[in-house]
C-alpha cells in the first residue's frame, strides 16, 4: 500500500450547493462529489477490504446520489444521508458475492470468569492477560497489518459495518441506527460483539 490516508469528514455541505445540485446544476453536483469523494472511498474500502470492490461501491454510490438527490430533505446531515447510501451499496455488493455466517460466536474473552478466583487475601486473581503498552506507530508492522486485515475480513459484514461506522468513523449510535434501520440496542449489541471478536483475533499477538 503506497500511501496512508485518513480522510476526515468534510465541513458540512453548503445547503446552497445542495439546493443547486438538486435543481440540476452539474457544477454544484461535481463540487459535492469532490467534497465527499475521499471519505466515501475510504469508508467503502474499510467495509469491503478490497480496492476494486470499494471503487465499484463508490461509483454506485454517486450514481445513486445523482439520481436520488432530490429526495434529500435536509433533516439529517448530508454526510449521514450519504453514508446510508454507501452502506447499502457495500452490503448489497457483499451479499451478492458471498453468503456468510450472520452471527459472531464470541461473547466473552478467553480467561473470563463470571465469578473470578481470589487469593488468600481476597484479591482477584488475574486470568485475562494484559496487552502490550507499545505505542501503536511502533506496533504497525506488516505482520500486524495482515493480522488486522484477516481479522476484519472474518467479521461478518453486518457487524463490520457497525464497527466501522461507530468506532472508526465516529458516527453516533443514533445515526447508525437510522442508517441501518436497526434499533439502538441492536446497534450496541453488534458493536459489542464486533469489538470482542476483533479483540480475540488480536489477543495472542498482543500478549505474546
Amino acid at each position, binding site marked *: 500500500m503506497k500511501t496512508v490516508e485518513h480522510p476526515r469528514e468534510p465541513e458540512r455541505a453548503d445547503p446552497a450547493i445542495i439546493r443547486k445540485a438538486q435543481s440540476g446544476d*452539474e457544477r454544484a453536483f461535481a463540487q459535492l462529489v469532490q467534497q465527499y469523494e475521499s471519505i466515501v472511498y475510504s469508508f467503502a474500502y474499510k467495509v469491503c477490504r478490497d*480496492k476494486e470492490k470499494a*471503487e465499484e461501491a463508490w461509483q454506485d454510490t454517486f450514481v445513486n446520489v445523482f439520481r436520488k438527490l432530490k429526495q434529500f430533505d435536509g433533516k439529517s446531515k448530508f454526510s449521514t444521508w450519504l453514508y446510508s447510501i454507501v452502506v447499502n451499496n457495500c452490503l448489497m455488493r457483499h451479499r451478492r458475492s458471498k453468503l456468510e455466517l450472520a452471527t459472531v460466536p464470541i461473547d466473552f474473552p478467553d480467561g473470563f470468569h463470571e465469578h473470578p478466583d481470589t487469593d488468600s487475601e481476597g484479591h482477584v486473581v488475574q486470568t485475562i492477560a494484559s496487552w502490550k503498552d507499545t505505542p501503536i506507530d511502533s506496533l504497525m508492522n506488516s505482520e500486524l497489518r495482515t493480522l488486522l486485515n484477516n481479522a476484519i475480513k472474518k467479521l461478518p459484514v453486518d457487524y463490520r459495518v457497525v464497527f466501522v461506522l461507530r468506532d472508526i468513523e465516529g458516527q453516533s449510535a443514533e445515526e447508525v441506527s437510522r442508517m441501518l434501520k436497526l434499533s439502538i440496542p441492536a446497534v450496541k449489541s453488534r458493536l459489542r460483539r464486533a469489538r470482542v471478536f476483533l479483540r480475540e483475533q488480536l489477543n495472542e499477538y498482543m500478549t505474546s
Partner: protein
Amino acid sequence: MKLKKIDCLDVAKHVCGDLDEHIDSEECRAIRKHLESCPNCTAYLDSLKKTVLIYQHIPSPRFPKRSRKKLFAKLKIKA
C-alpha cells in the same frame, strides 16, 4: 449514595457496549469502582480500547482520481 453492585459479567456487557460513553451515569460510576479491585476487567477494558485504537490506525489507500472521471463520463457531466 450507595453504588449499585456490579460484577464482571455486568462490566463485560456494559463497558463493552459503551466504552467511554455515559461516563457519569450510575452504572459507569459503579463500573469504575469495580475496576479498582478487578485486574481482569481492567485488562479487558484496556484491551478493548487498544483494539479500537489499532483499527483506527489502519491506513486506507488514496482515492483513485480516475474514478471521478469515470463517474462524470457515465453521468454525462461536464465538470
